[in-house]
């Protein structure tokens, strides 16, 4: 069944649940970059991010039979990604990437953007690199809240839903993240 160009994520997922493989392609195209970057920012390892990324989408594919519209699709998708990430973190619990450790140092160096964007000025590119570096220094939860907002377009309620915390907790994490990023970028303001 062909889908309209502006079909909602939810209707595309329902169409895929009912056997429309083309609907999945559309959904994947919309969210592949955001989910990948979310995982990449959180685990900060490209190879691991790819592995987790594949797991997230395969979990979605396998769970399609039971899919029902209970929330925004992006919330549903980022919840899957968050859960997969938490599984990964639990497995490597011995490492310093504890969710409770605010001072945990990054395992890998922050991932720099790969593709060159000619239209962006050198100054803007430098600001972007600075921002990503600051982001990499944020605690996992605060970074997660910021990236979910930017990549998934999730609201506070949706971030709270996807990460399994209260709205106030999500709000607090996001505020802290923004405050630290603003502070780090103060020299550019």
């Amino acid at each position, binding site marked *: 069944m062909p889908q309209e160009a502006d079909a909602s994520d939810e209707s595309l997922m329902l169409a895929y649940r009912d056997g*429309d493989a083309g609907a*999945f392609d559309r959904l994947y195209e919309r969210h592949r970059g955001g989910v990948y970057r979310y995982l990449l920012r959180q685990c900060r390892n490209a190879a691991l991010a*790819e592995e987790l990324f594949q797991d997230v989408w395969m979990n979605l*594919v396998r769970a399609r039979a039971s899919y029902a519209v209970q929330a925004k699709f992006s919330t549903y998708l980022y919840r899957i990604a968050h859960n997969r990430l938490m599984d990964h973190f639990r497995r490597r619990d011995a490492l310093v990437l504890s969710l409770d450790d605010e001072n945990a140092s990054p395992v890998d160096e922050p991932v720099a953007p790969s593709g060159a964007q000619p239209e962006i000025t050198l100054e803007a590119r430098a600001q972007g690199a600075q921002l990503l570096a600051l982001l990499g220094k944020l605690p996992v939860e605060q970074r997660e809240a910021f990236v979910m907002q930017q990549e998934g377009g999730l609201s*506070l309620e949706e971030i709270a839903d996807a990460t399994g915390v209260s709205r106030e907790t999500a709000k607090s994490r996001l505020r802290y993240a*923004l405050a630290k*990023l603003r502070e780090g970028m103060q020299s550019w*303001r």
Partner: protein
Amino acid sequence: MALNSGNDREHDELLAKRYREAANEAPPVRLDAAIRAAARREAGAGPRPLSRLRAWRVPVSLAAVLVLSATLVLMMREEGTDQLETAVEPVSPRAVAPERPAEPQALPAEALTPASPSRAPQSRAQSPAADIAPPAPLVAPQVEQKILAGNAVPPESSPEPRLEVAAMAEMARPMMSAAPAPAAADSAAGRMARSAPAAATVALAAPPLWQDLIDQPADKWIQRILEWQRAGRSADAEALVREFVRRFPQQPLPPEIRQP
């Protein structure tokens, strides 16, 4: 270019813009292809496991019904063979006498007249004198008709036993109709009497041809046999002879009685 502030506490437009410009990583193309291919495979794999179960439900049900039916038929056949080999214990009609409708003490005159071809078997079953009316060549169909007619059910019986009897008679029909001898019919009736008391009550509630002779001496039986033979009711007479021989095994039959 300097970053400007002036945003709310949960959103910063300029930070968002810088982030969007900086964050442009994407998954490798090979990963895209692998995920899309897996998704297509899953979508093209047909129904999901739940639907697969649903699709198998009908064939599995049909197979189960067939197996159960075949098993039941085989069991009934085996039981029928056993009954043919073992002697059938006669059930005393006195035991079911209270459930039986009032029976005529003497045969109506019309019952003794020769058989009329126009009389339908169903009307026989509905008539109180049906059991002494001209019978079918074999006794087995008689028993079957009595059961199927449902008139033999006493008034106090509930509808459920009647249905049960009809169902049992339906199941027993192939075997009973295939039985060449009356013994087979008796065996089938006896088997049903043992397996379902209600069915036995119903089956025995229909008075046999020799109902009024049960307490009579042998000479009365002989007299009745001769009467029926003279009246051309050979099938009834033969059935009566068989019952006579069973009841009075030591009693010799007169030479004028034709033995079946």
